């Protein structure tokens, strides 16, 4: 998503759809053959899927490729649109994908609206982190390659990029496909992590969540996205205490009740957008050097403040 929005300047709201494709592909491919009968208890399973089972890493790659393939097809008409129109069109496609997955006609493949369960989880937590890290590494390598530069050029100025010999449609399609590949893999990881999925997970809310993470972390920054995703997920949990009734001196503060944390969360988000307009990281990348400088800079700033205060006093 960040590749698409941040680096190519294409605004797509269809990522939930590609995640759904990835998640379902992984689920169907990894549910153990003996467990399948109990998962597909309603309509039974299509015969060609019944004995299909492969290791999760292979399933993830297939999931990514499948999502990328669908993206390639969708991209042909959709990428001719610009900005807001592109966002709406991709949003539509993502909902179509979700609806198709939930359709009763596909019960034998996707188990329709019943969802899929008994997906084997990760053997250990390091595998999950390792795969995420691998995806991020590939992303960073791509962005810093010649192709990453081409994508950035496209974002900066389409006409000039064309004059530099970049085929507009080809590069947009490429970015769309690659981004969908990683989204598909991401969806697959989610499926393995959650161990059970249903089509409702992949509604528009998921897209908004991703968008939130990207914007919060800083559009055009990979490390920003990583930080953003931690912040968003952790923020939701940390703020949970707002949901519990709070008594101060025996009086219940009326605002503190279930759901209130989302209000606080929204306010914090607005604050971030207002004060860090370009996200926490902007388009900068995180580096240990930068962190070091920042920490080193804090005492200096404090000193300056002190001096300023002293100056005022004097």
């Amino acid at each position, binding site marked *: 998503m960040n590749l698409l929005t941040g680096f190519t300047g294409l605004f797509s709201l269809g990522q939930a759809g590609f995640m759904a494709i990835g998640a379902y592909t992984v689920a169907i491919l990894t549910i153990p053959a003996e467990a399948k009968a109990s998962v597909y208890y309603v309509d039974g399973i299509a015969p060609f899927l019944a004995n299909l089972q492969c290791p999760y890493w292979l399933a993830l790659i297939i999931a990514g490729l499948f999502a990328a393939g669908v993206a390639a097809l969708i991209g042909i008409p959709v990428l001719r649109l610009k900005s807001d129109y592109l966002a709406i069109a991709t949003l539509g496609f993502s909902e179509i994908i979700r609806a198709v997955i939930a359709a009763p006609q596909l019960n034998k493949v996707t188990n329709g609206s019943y969802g899929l369960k008994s997906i084997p989880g990760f053997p250990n937590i390091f595998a999950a982190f390792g795969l995420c890290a691998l995806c991020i590494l*590939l992303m960073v*390598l*791509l962005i810093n*390659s*010649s*192709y990453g*530069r*081409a994508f*950035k*050029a496209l974002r*900066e*100025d389409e*006409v*000039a*990029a*064309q*004059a*530099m*010999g*970049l*085929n*507009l449609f080809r590069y947009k399609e*490429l970015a769309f496909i*690659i981004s969908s590949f990683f989204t598909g893999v991401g969806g697959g990881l989610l499926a393995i992590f959650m161990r059970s999925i249903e089509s409702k997970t992949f509604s528009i809310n998921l897209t908004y969540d991703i968008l939130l993470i990207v914007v919060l972390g800083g559009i055009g920054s990979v490390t920003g996205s990583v930080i953003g995703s931690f912040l968003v997920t952790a923020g939701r949990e940390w703020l949970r205490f707002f949901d519990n009734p709070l008594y101060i001196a025996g009086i219940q503060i009326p605002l503190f009740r279930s759901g209130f944390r989302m209000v606080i969360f929204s306010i914090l988000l607005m604050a971030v957008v207002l004060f860090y307009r370009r996200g926490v990281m902007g*388009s900068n990348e995180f580096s240990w050097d930068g962190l070091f400088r920042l920490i080193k800079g804090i005492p200096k700033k404090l000193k300056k403040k002190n001096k300023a205060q002293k100056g005022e006093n004097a």
Partner: protein
Amino acid sequence: MSATAKTSANVLHMQDVTMQFGGVVAVNGLTLDVNEGEIVALIGPNGAGKTTAFNCMTGIYEPTFGQVDFMGETILSNTPKGKMQKMYLGEVKPRPLSIVRNTPDVITKKGIARTFQNIRLFGQLTVFDNVLIAKHMRAKQNVFSATLRLNRKEEARMREETSALLNEQNLLHLKDEIASSLPYGLQRRLEIARALATEPKFLLLDEPAAGMNPQETQELTDFIKQIRDSYHLTVLMIEHHMDLVMQISDRIYVLDFGKLIAQGTPDEIQNNERVIEAYLGVSDDAED
């Protein structure tokens, strides 16, 4: 297919090119030739259709009617069809032409590079990256080899060529600056450098001296001549600074309201009554 038999010295040949937007004919039956090694200027009052003519050569617009040949090969050719047949207002009677379409990137690959009237650099990227992007299209690589860093040699070659080019243009010391933070004159310079990085045979400059003072204009004049010689280029430019145009051009074409009103050497143009009229308006006093 008349134009394909031109001599090899012909770089660009436009035949009856007409560009119509709705009911407005921006370029009207323009026929124009540029020969190898020449510096040709395209001048005319504001709104005469000069930039539109450029866009017709580079494939940004598809001409309504007419044909554009580059190095003897037809790169763009069109004839009005469908609704356009009734709407067509161009002066030259349309005749059936085979339809040839090329997107701007293909035309750039064939060797036409251009700069833009309102500078179009990749503003948020560094000077170095701006030029490096132009090298991308001629590199032998694909997205997998680039991501997995299997193209190290290509990448190194691209970087080396970029450094060399920036060095020649005296921009190397600025290579890590963000393009949009450069002063205006240098941005123009960088845009030309970026165009040169696409390894063109034919360079289109759209108002390269816009916003420059006389001294900078003089430097630019020398600069254009110098790059023409060192890169074996043919140059076609749009320009309003008459000093520059008269000094540098081998030939001049004058457009007014989309139509060619004069062509010739700088001397001929300076004394052409129609040109004076177009620039100063028809007036009894204008010819003293």
